[in-house]
């Protein structure tokens, strides 16, 4: 049972202020997004309708701590079909951004940022890869791209992740 005294009535307004979150209040709960969602087809625990409705109820903890928030595959099927014209995928993005700001970032995402900072890539280029390229007649590539780290530093991401 949920006691709405523990809810945060300002939560929905915080999301509405974020880019992509403008449509949140339009939701009337038809669940077309959930019915269209291919992720839900494979894992019933993911349900965009519930994420939106919990957000509207102000259940900040439930929404931000939920691992399912991060399941969205950004296929935009929900955005196409929403009868109220809510850009659902972008709304989920807005909630994700808010979650990260509040310190609810999954470890995997943090590690990806670490990799990008270190190498400028999401995967490591090793000697084995360079040898393979050589065999195929391709030019060698740099093991690290330091420019990516510079770009990341100039964005807000490190501050948000509190690094």
């Amino acid at each position, binding site marked *: 049972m*949920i*006691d709405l*005294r523990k809810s945060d009535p300002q939560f929905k307004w915080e999301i509405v202020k974020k880019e992509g979150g403008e449509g949140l209040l*339009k939701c*009337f709960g038809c669940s077309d997004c959930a019915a269209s969602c291919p992720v839900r087809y494979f894992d019933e625990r993911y349900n965009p309708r*519930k994420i939106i*409705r*919990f957000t509207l*109820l102000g259940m900040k903890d439930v929404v931000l701590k939920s691992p399912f928030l991060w399941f969205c595959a950004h296929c935009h099927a929900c955005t196409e079909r929403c009868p109220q014209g809510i850009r659902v995928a972008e709304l989920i993005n807005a909630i994700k951004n808010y979650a990260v700001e509040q310190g609810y970032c999954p470890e995997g995402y943090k590690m990806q940022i670490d990799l990008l900072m270190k190498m400028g890539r999401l995967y490591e280029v090793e000697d084995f890869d360079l040898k393979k390229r050589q065999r195929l007649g391709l030019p060698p590539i740099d093991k690290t791209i330091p420019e990516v780290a510079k770009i990341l530093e100039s964005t807000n991401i490190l501050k948000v992740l509190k690094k």
Partner: protein
Amino acid sequence: MNNKIRVLVCNCHNSVKIPELDLGADVVVERHDNLCNVRPQISGEEKIVIAGCSPNLLEGIYLDVNAEFVNIIEHVAMIGHPAEKAKCMIIAAIEKIKETEPIKKKIFEVKHKKALVIGGGIAGIEVAFQLSKNGVGVTLVEKNPFLGGTVAKLDRLYPEGTPYSHTLMPLINNLESCKDLERRVNTTVTEVKGRPGDYHIVLSTSPRGVTECINCGKCVDVCPVEVDDDGKKRKAIYYVPTYPDCYAIDFETCTKCGECVKVCPGKIDLNEKNKESETNVGAIVVATGLNWYDINKVEEYGYGRLEGVMKTLEFERAVASGTLHPKKVAIIYCAGSRDSNHLPYCSKICCLLGLKEAKLVKDRFPEAEVYVIAMDMRSYGTFEYLYNKLRDKGVSFIKGKPSEVFKRNGSLVVRTEDLYTNELLEIDVDSVVLSSGFVADKGTFDKLNIKLNNDFPILFENAGLGSHELPRGIFTAGAATFPSGVAETLIDARKASHSALNLLREDRIETRLPQAKIDDDQCSLCRMCIGTCPYNAISIVDDKIKINEELCMGCGICSVTCPSYASQLEGWNHRGLYQQIRALVGQGDLLAIMCRWSAYNATERAAQDKLSYAENVKIVRVPCTGAVDPSHVMLALNKGARGVLIGGCYPDACHYARGNFRAKARESILRMNLESLGMDKNRVRLEWIGKDEAKKFVEIAKEMNK
């Protein structure tokens, strides 16, 4: 000549070939080319059998003739049935008309070109104005001391929140210019007698207390009695800025202390008596509006038990008058509506009222949190716009029906399951608003002897019957018909006023509807017919059952209800029908008794659609399935019919309100009896067959023939 029966056979431009008919000496057979265009000379007293095309067509042309119609075109010629069948049908019609009383013309006088409008809300005001504008004298009766009804109690109207006065005041001001208009406040109708065109009305006017008033308001300052009037505080002497421009005393709460009399520069009489008056009118328009459902009965929501739980109207008035500053509000929808323990129907406008209250709170206190808890949001038509707007304003909508409201640590808690998230919620609020349904003003309808369905005078709103079901001369306007918003009420009021005008503008009304007749020798005064008549046309006068000619619409339901067959319908006497069925039905035939409004048309449509059915299907036309007696059915079975099909209108489309329901009840009992007699109960069937459902008719006939 007069004793002879004339049979007019229409050749329909030589397309029908009927062999020579030898029908005995007292029958004269004539052949015509097109009876629908050329009308032969017929005197009023003759008995005529017209064998031609559809009676629905010919009936209009031979309206003043005592005629029995046989459809030999659609029922025989067009579907390739043998001429023998036509002969059999003509003989059956001759047998019927021998025993049938002709349908006579009735004339009734519209004596009083005046109308009584009951209810001084927006519907009543608009009806009074429209009638008065068209030269009809009007007596407008309002039971409260002021005109305006429910709308005068509201703060604002949905969807945009326009103040109520913008709509109400122009309507009231319209009345000022009306001639021959009597506005009677503090008045109720105590007795209604008479018939359409000539009603005798007794009115009772209760004392107003204030007889001469200059609107100074000194009385209100000294009055010690404070009254809660639907959420707004007022004194026992009060004023509503509508009409009349005069203070009034609420004698239910007044202690008669006499303080107001001392300060009044006008005149206050605390000991006035009820006054009775009489009037005569030609038509009555009921515009009694709606009453809030008694929400005390929904005990789980704690109305009257928990402080802070209120009705929509109380909440609106309390917020508008500034006595309530809600911070957290829960608006509970369908409180007692769509509930088999309370009101089984949807009152249509309460969803919008709830939205209006939500908007009211958000407009006045933007920081307040509003939870709307609804099973379904029925913001019909363009009002979806209001729903969308409120979501944008941040009102929280929760889907579900709250189980209970209770107090915890001084605040109200609503417990509900939210179907959007499948979670059980407990919501702490300071005010709970119950958006309950509505019931009609039963008292007035009782006085007019009108039976209510689902608390309202209509059976199904969407079948478009509405006031069609009411006895002639009585019309309903606005929310008395069914709960409706302000705009719909005004539109309905205009329609009702024009229906009343249709009656009142004539000096005499002529009808040629069949009518029930009572044989006093056979009548045992059991009074069963009185309750069964949909039009209240039957009453007891001088220890005799009397049928009111002006009200009887000719359904024939009473003729079947009567246990001693004392009631007979003109044109469809029982004896005539027996003779017809006897002559028509042979061994192995299928008798189809068809309602003339729907199923009979379907049988004709079958020929036009080139659908064919077996030759043994014999069709009899009746005014309503409610007029089909079990003895007709049993006679047909006795004569060797393999089955009897009764075809009637769909449940919400009966022309006589409830005839088809009565037929259904009789059919199920008849089937039970057949079973107990060891017969196949499926030999008797009642089916709903629409005007154009020829295919359905043909399929059922085929099924029953197996």
